């Protein structure tokens, strides 16, 4: 479990000016929750007279409660982190804004990393609420993110033996993405490419470091993929397929057995019309999943099966064999009722089979049954398109009740989507 060795000991000794660590605040939490533990530890500390990580760990392990309560553990990083996380996972962005503004006005944020963490949540919430210029303004209130004032080593009294940047990576990403939301696409692309350079160089530095930084290295590798993925999405939205293909191929050359990545290559090829290429990509995916069992770290077994099925269904669809496509999607939904891609695409295929009412039913059921995954902009747009095709359903009195609830759904969905992108 994550509890830095210096945890509550440092807090206890704060008055003696021992430097608190990143997780210092947790010390308070854990102590408040487990006063017995504190005394036990104090006793052992006094006797050993030094910070012994092993000793504290054993003591904590002795208390099962401290380990199993997840939010406590998250709060090791920051006292409010688990509540911020809960709000974020629930999409309560306004509450997050309130919380941040309260913390700021009451000067509850003591450490530099606190400020940054709260700011990154603030920017994220503003972005999710589509208040893009406010978000950008908040980021611009900071100095350059590469400034030493955001590095641990600038505060040796606060963070002894800790070095590196305390900027959450999401903040850098948002800083790059926001201009495009305000229409400045080129600025975003420039920032993303610069970010990519930075990520690659961090990856190189950590790979070559004498300390074994395996976890850090793999985290930066993932960040590289994340940034390239974002860049690809921008080029795709401008239909710059040549660049996308080059970038995807580049990624594949470093990670040739990634079935989700290869599937995305297939989708890109299919989108601009290279059906032969898409088929070849999907064949490779099937081979990887069925023969090599690749992708286990990305998706569950059901997830992989559904990926292969959905790819197969797309091939049926472009060949106009809608019946087979629907069958594939039904198998996917049976395996995983939350497979929103299968649900949405099944509805589309039903429409091409002239089964408009079933097509609409599939989407409506999903919105009722699994609203949190089904409320997806594309799915709702499709549903509205289908309804427009279904004439006069709003007119006859017998259908009014159904319509009212339908309308309500879409109003809810639209409001939600506006609220939370």
């Amino acid at each position: 479990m994550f509890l830095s060795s210096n945890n509550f000991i440092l807090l206890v000794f704060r008055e003696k000016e021992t430097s608190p660590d990143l997780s210092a605040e947790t010390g308070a939490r854990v102590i408040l929750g487990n006063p017995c533990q504190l005394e036990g530890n104090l006793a052992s500390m006094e006797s050993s007279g030094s910070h012994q990580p092993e000793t504290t760990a054993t003591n904590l392990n002795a208390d099962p409660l401290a380990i199993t309560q997840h939010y406590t553990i998250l709060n090791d990083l920051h006292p409010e982190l688990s509540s911020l996380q809960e709000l974020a996972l629930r999409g309560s962005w306004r509450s997050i804004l309130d919380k941040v503004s309260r913390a700021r006005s009451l000067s509850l944020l003591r450490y530099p990393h606190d400020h940054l963490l709260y700011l990154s949540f603030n920017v994220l919430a503003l972005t999710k609420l589509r208040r893009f210029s406010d978000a950008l303004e908040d980021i611009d209130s900071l100095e350059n993110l590469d400034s030493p004032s955001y590095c641990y080593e600038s505060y040796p009294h606060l963070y002894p033996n800790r070095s590196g940047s305390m900027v959450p990576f999401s903040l850098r990403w948002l800083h790059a993405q926001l201009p495009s939301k305000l229409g400045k696409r080129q600025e975003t692309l420039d920032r993303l490419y610069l970010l990519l350079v930075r990520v690659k160089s961090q990856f190189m530095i950590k790979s070559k470091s004498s300390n074994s930084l395996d976890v850090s290295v793999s985290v930066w590798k993932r960040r590289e993929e994340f940034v390239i993925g974002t860049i690809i999405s921008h080029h795709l939205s401008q239909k710059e397929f040549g660049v996308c293909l080059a970038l995807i191929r580049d990624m594949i050359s470093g990670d040739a057995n990634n079935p989700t990545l290869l599937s995305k290559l297939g989708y890109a090829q299919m989108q601009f019309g290279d059906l032969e290429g898409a088929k070849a990509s999907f064949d490779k995916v099937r081979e990887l999943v069925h023969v090599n069992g690749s992708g286990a770290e990305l998706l569950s077994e059901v997830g992989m099966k559904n990926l292969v099925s959905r790819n197969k269904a797309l091939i049926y669809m472009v060949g106009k064999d809608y019946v087979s496509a629907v069958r594939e999607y039904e198998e996917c939904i049976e395996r995983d009722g939350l497979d929103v891609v299968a649900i949405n695409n099944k509805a589309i295929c039903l429409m091409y089979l002239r089964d408009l009412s079933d097509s609409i039913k599939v989407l409506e059921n999903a919105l009722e049954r699994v609203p949190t995954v089904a409320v997806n902009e594309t799915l709702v747009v499709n549903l509205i398109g289908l309804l427009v095709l279904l004439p006069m359903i709003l007119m006859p009195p017998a259908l009014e009740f159904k319509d009212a609830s339908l309308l309500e759904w879409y109003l809810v969905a639209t409001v939600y989507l506006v609220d939370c992108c």
Partner: protein
Amino acid sequence: MSAAQGPHSLAFRVMRLCRPSLHVESPLSFDPADLFVGEDIFDDPVAASELPRLFQSQSLKSADSDLTYRSRLLLHDPFDATGLSGLLVLPQSFGAIYLGETFCSYVSINNSSNFEVRDVVIKAEIQTERQKVLLLDTSKSPVESIRAGGRYDFIVEHDIKELGAHTLVCSALYNDGGSSDRKYLPQYFKFIVANPLSVRTKDTSFLEACIENHTKSDLFMDQVEFQPAQHWSSTVLKAGVHHSQNNSIRNMFRPPILVRSGGGIHNFLYQLKLSTLGTGQAKVEGSNILGKLQITWRTNLGEPGRLQTQQILGSPIPWKEIDLQVVKMPSVISVQIPFVVQLSLTNQTDRTLGPFEVELSGTGTNEEKAVMINGLHKMVLPPLEASSSIDFHLNLIADKLGVQKIPGLTIFDSREKKTYESLLDFEFFVDSD
């Protein structure tokens, strides 16, 4: 059909059915390690050993009834950032329709009255200036009834072969409610067909075809083939073709030929050869028909379009069996001072030609010439193998100032007894000394 029919119980609704698109949505989601901690925290060995497990337990917590919106915040696969989820989206607007595409439409006829409608004869046809094409006709087996509030749907398809205004005419002939009056409802849906491509050709012994895309979307060139006319054979010339790997890898990674929307161009090069070589200057009577270009393109999700050009005409200049080019020319040429020109003679056939005799044309006349050969008037060149060339020098002297031409050179193949005239057309400037 009665003149005054009153309001209709039936109404048509149409939706153009092109293929859907694969939606690209840029998600706003993150890996927990990018959200909740500073970016370099994993350098700390304690964090490195504890945090990943903590975050993983957060993100993989998806119960069957997942009531949080965690999937809207947490990113599990970094490549999901590409936005390619595989979600299909219906076409949002009618879009533009082009020659060579297939027009496909969902038609729904709906009964908005409170009565049943019986014996419905439905017809759908496409009308253009030139013709009417029947797409659907249920006169042989009319739809027995459409209940109140019910509908009857069908899908029609039509290959677009004409430009300009098109009208989809949907009509229904039916009995309203219990009455025996036949009512007739025609509805018209208009659209305009535009030209998607223009093809420009340029030819000498090679045919260069330039395809320009006038549509609003990129076109993936699935197949572009030149179908040569009689007596001609063609080979497409492509740079850097790899005869490597197996088919599937090649297909997966082959660079697509994508022509950009709104004016993008792509050039195709074909080498044309006369199949009846022995006849020398094969000049077909009348116009010189080379053949046709057959183009198949695809747009989103493989939506196909097909066009064939008109017959492409070749220029009357026959394909040259030998070619003469100037390789090197002195930078300064002064009047009445001899200079040397290096020329290259190429044999463009697949058999050995020659030996050759090279001389200035019109040597017989006494006319004063601006440029003359300084030296022997006739030069002999050895035979040339197929597709090979030879360099030789000509000693020339110019007698007049200004822009001059290398005088017509005649090359005589002494074995085949064939004369090639005036192969060179090269100008240069003669300065005073």
